[in-house]
């Protein structure tokens, strides 16, 4: 098996044992990127020399006898919303083209300290606003399963990079499903930790009360290892939770669901869901029962109002968060020819620097926060948010985890929903409630839809700080399904 097909855990062990160098592992992935990324377009920035320099440093630390962590020397791709001192950070936007931050995000810093080697920065919907990565100012990323289809979004570059074996691990951010939905449609694992469980410092904000950094990998254990490596309290993020990181790695190694109470969310399924998605989901429910779990149907009535509430709260926060991109201190500056006022330069810059979806959301959010509309829109949406959190609380009185399909459909063709924002927004129907309530939730592969042969994801939702439960159930499903399939789902993807 080539180095790029190995798991992160195996690569870490091989490097620690000295059987392979971090430089060799990095080079193998750089070669793979060079070979397939022209088709996939997962990366916005790759800089082999910077990558190899980091790999050499890990090899030197090992040679000096330093004890290295389980992921030291393992390559990683970062979604291009995390700041990196040695690579540009654009958020997928023209307004930050070429911007080089003077500081590392907490997530990138912690992973650097753990010895992970950065391969590059991955593509995304501009400012993480979208479900297809088509909203990137730098062109769409393609799904490795079918290059004419979307890889999900907004973290589509990160999901595609891992699914295309360009990186064993990647980071993403999940505001309304931006990790779980791309993971589902590319046949990999993606986790949205409990809100506040992973630091937002250095994550370019979309919607502050929802944004959650999280891991991607090709299997549950690798995902947990990455989760553990960057999580935990951060004094630089006031909303960071000051509590121990849930024991996600142990849970991923355990994978026992016997006696576990699992709730199937009644409101997710039926009309608007692809038949192949529902078929795989129901099979997985039966599988969990066969593994000894007790399955119940649980009603969460307010989940049906999550989508409209989300599309008031997220745009409201983004309209304020994106105000700082004003051409004054950094980034794009348009029209500063000495004749125009600062206000005119700001307006011209924002007009040219932001794409249509970003503008749509800024306008929506500005409207929703306006005097006279605030109570009816933002205020009302916050009430819905409380109801959703209550539904979760009530559900978790009855069951240990909730499950649903991650997305209503498999990956759709590039361009299909580009002119229909409402259709695009539906991709996050099942994932948004966990963001609004701050819960932990994961997507793991559960098969291919019969109609199109494309991956289907299972979503497992757990209470706040119950992240380990996602991994425990995810590991059980992964193990049982891989036994049935005779290998990983991804091994059935076409060769690139």
């Amino acid at each position, binding site marked *: 098996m080539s180095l790029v097909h190995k798991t992160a855990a195996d690569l870490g062990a091989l490097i620690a044992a000295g059987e392979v160098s971090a430089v060799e592992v990095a080079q193998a992935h750089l070669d793979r990127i060079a070979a397939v990324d022209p088709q996939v377009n997962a990366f916005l920035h790759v800089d082999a020399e910077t990558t190899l320099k980091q790999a050499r440093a890990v090899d030197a630390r090992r040679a000096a006898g330093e004890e290295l962590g389980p992921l030291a020397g393992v390559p990683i791709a970062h979604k291009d919303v995390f*700041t990196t001192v040695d690579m540009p950070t654009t958020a997928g936007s023209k307004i930050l083209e070429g911007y080089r*931050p003077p500081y590392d995000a907490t997530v990138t810093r912690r992973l650097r300290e753990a010895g992970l080697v950065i391969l590059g920065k991955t593509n995304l919907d501009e400012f993480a606003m979208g479900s297809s990565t088509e909203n990137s100012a730098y062109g769409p990323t393609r799904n490795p399963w079918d290059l004419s289809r979307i890889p999900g979004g907004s973290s589509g570059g990160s999901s595609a990079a891992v699914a295309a074996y360009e990186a064993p691990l990647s980071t993403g951010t999940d505001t309304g499903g931006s990790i779980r939905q791309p993971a589902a449609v590319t046949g990999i694992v993606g986790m949205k930790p409990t809100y506040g469980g992973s630091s937002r410092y250095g994550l370019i904000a979309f919607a502050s009360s929802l944004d959650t950094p999280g891991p991607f990998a090709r299997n549950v254990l690798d995902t947990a290892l990455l989760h553990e490596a960057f999580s935990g309290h951060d004094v630089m993020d006031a909303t960071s939770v000051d509590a121990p990181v849930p024991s996600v790695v142990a849970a991923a190694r355990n994978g026992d669901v016997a006696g576990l109470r699992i709730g199937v969310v009644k409101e997710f399924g039926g009309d608007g869901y692809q038949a192949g998605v529902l078929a795989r989901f129901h099979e997985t429910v039966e599988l969990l029962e066969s593994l000894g779990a007790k399955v119940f149907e649980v009603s969460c009535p307010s989940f049906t109002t999550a989508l409209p509430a989300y599309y008031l709260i997220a745009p409201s926060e983004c*309209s*304020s968060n994106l105000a700082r991109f*004003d051409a004054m201190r950094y980034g794009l500056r348009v029209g500063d020819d000495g004749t125009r006022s600062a206000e005119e330069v700001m307006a011209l810059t924002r007009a040219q620097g932001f794409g249509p979806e970003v503008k749509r959301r800024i306008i929506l959010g500005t409207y929703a926060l306006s005097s006279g509309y605030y109570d009816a829109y933002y205020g009302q949406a916050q009430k819905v948010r409380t109801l959703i959190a209550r539904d979760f609380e009530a559900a978790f009185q009855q069951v240990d985890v909730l499950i649903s399909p991650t997305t209503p459909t498999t990956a759709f063709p590039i361009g299909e929903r580009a002119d229909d924002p409402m259709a695009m927004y539906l991709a996050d129907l099942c994932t948004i409630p966990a963001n609004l309530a701050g819960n932990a939730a994961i997507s793991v592969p559960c098969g291919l839809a019969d109609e199109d042969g494309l991956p289907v994801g299972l979503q497992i939702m757990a209470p706040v700080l119950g992240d380990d439960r996602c991994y425990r159930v995810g590991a059980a499903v992964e193990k049982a399904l891989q036994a049935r399939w005779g290998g990983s789902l991804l091994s059935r993807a076409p060769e690139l």
Partner: protein
Amino acid sequence: MPYDEALERFEPVLGLETHVELGTASKMFCGCPTTFGAPPNTHVCPVCLALPGSLPTTNAAAIESTIRIGLALNCSIAEWCRFARKNYFYPDMPKNYQISQYDEPLCFDGYLDVEVDGKTVRIEIERVHLEEDTGKSTHVGGATGRIHGADYSIVDYNRAGIPLVEIVTKPIPGTDRLAPEVARAYGTELRELVRGLGVSDVRMEEGSMRFDVNVSLMPRGSSEWGTRTETKNVNSLRSVERSVRGEIERQAAILADGGRIIQETRHFHENTGTTTSGRSKEEAQDYRYFPEPDLVPIAPDPAWVAELKAALPELPGVRRKRLQQEWGVSDLDMTSMYNADAIVLVEATVAAGAPPADARKWWMGELARRANEAGLPLSALRITPDQIARVCAMVAGGALNDKLARQVLEGVLNGEGSPDEVVAARGLQIVNDEGELMEIIDQVLAGNADAADKVRSGKVAAVGALVGGVMKASRGKADAGRARELILERLGVSE
């Protein structure tokens, strides 16, 4: 319209919003230092420059200072409250929103008693909240120094993110013709209170305390308040008083002519004592306030708040009563010291060893005169209470007389150094060497034989001219009393 006429026809209603920069070591939401006067854009970091991805974290010392101000103003302290974002675009505000507080202030419903004209006036406090300061724009070119008409602007973000407390009064009716004095007295008392708490240096000339002054008028006999204007960033107590007076005169003239007052912000001009129109509030900005999602709510522990309350220092009114007793001064003297803003200075001078009467004499006499000439507040004079105390000690020890002491003060104010350095450099020591003094006396007697004869013949009053001659010849350094004695002795005359 002249003030007296304006007051015959209208009654003013006041309102004051005061911004106080807290003296915390670091900024409100990051670790940058807050010291004044650093080179532009050196006290900045990713957070206060609002670089992409940066996040605010709350300065606990600023929360504590704000609660202490609230407690000193007899406010209730919120058990739970949040920061809010105030959204508007301006180049000196890095995030293009200000983290402030909206409908959930940290402190609310208090009061401050001030004394005006021998009467106590209770000023009701609406709220005390915490926010961050903006950067500072300088508009270069153009006539006004304002952004309109400027060639270009430069921005210094050192001030961006410095914790700022906003103290808002409820509307203050019933001040009648004393409105300007009440406004000033409130400002003075508030400054004393904040300074006494040690939470800000309240240097108005550096902008660490500034006032927005709201004024409206209603016709006498009416109970319906008029439209108000808000004069922004008034930065001295004298200007607070003048701006109220000027605004009353301006509004009265418009109303008397049948005009209407436009709700707007106005700018105060020190040189003329008048205000000019700023931004109309009738097309009010919509700040789209919403709870700051990057920060968690503030929930001060009631037990801790009670501890802070118990540990408050003596408040200014109580302190003044105590000092008045200790110093043994009259109500009138105390009031004049208070009005001249001299109490703290006198107190510090006494603490440095000067007798209270001497400390008061210098600050309220010579120094007040010089401050007045220079158009400066007493506290802005370049002389310290320690230096005054040193001069007092030299006079008491006989090394200086009052005339020489004034010259020493002049030297210190001119930046010539400490009192001892000025005495040495200017040679101001009293001539105590009697041999030297006798030489001068003999010269003067020789040059004024007529006057000397008159004294010898019994006209003792003529000695004045001779003493004057000695003082002149010694350039004021002689001890006049001793010179008189020696002249009479030399002339063989006794009194």
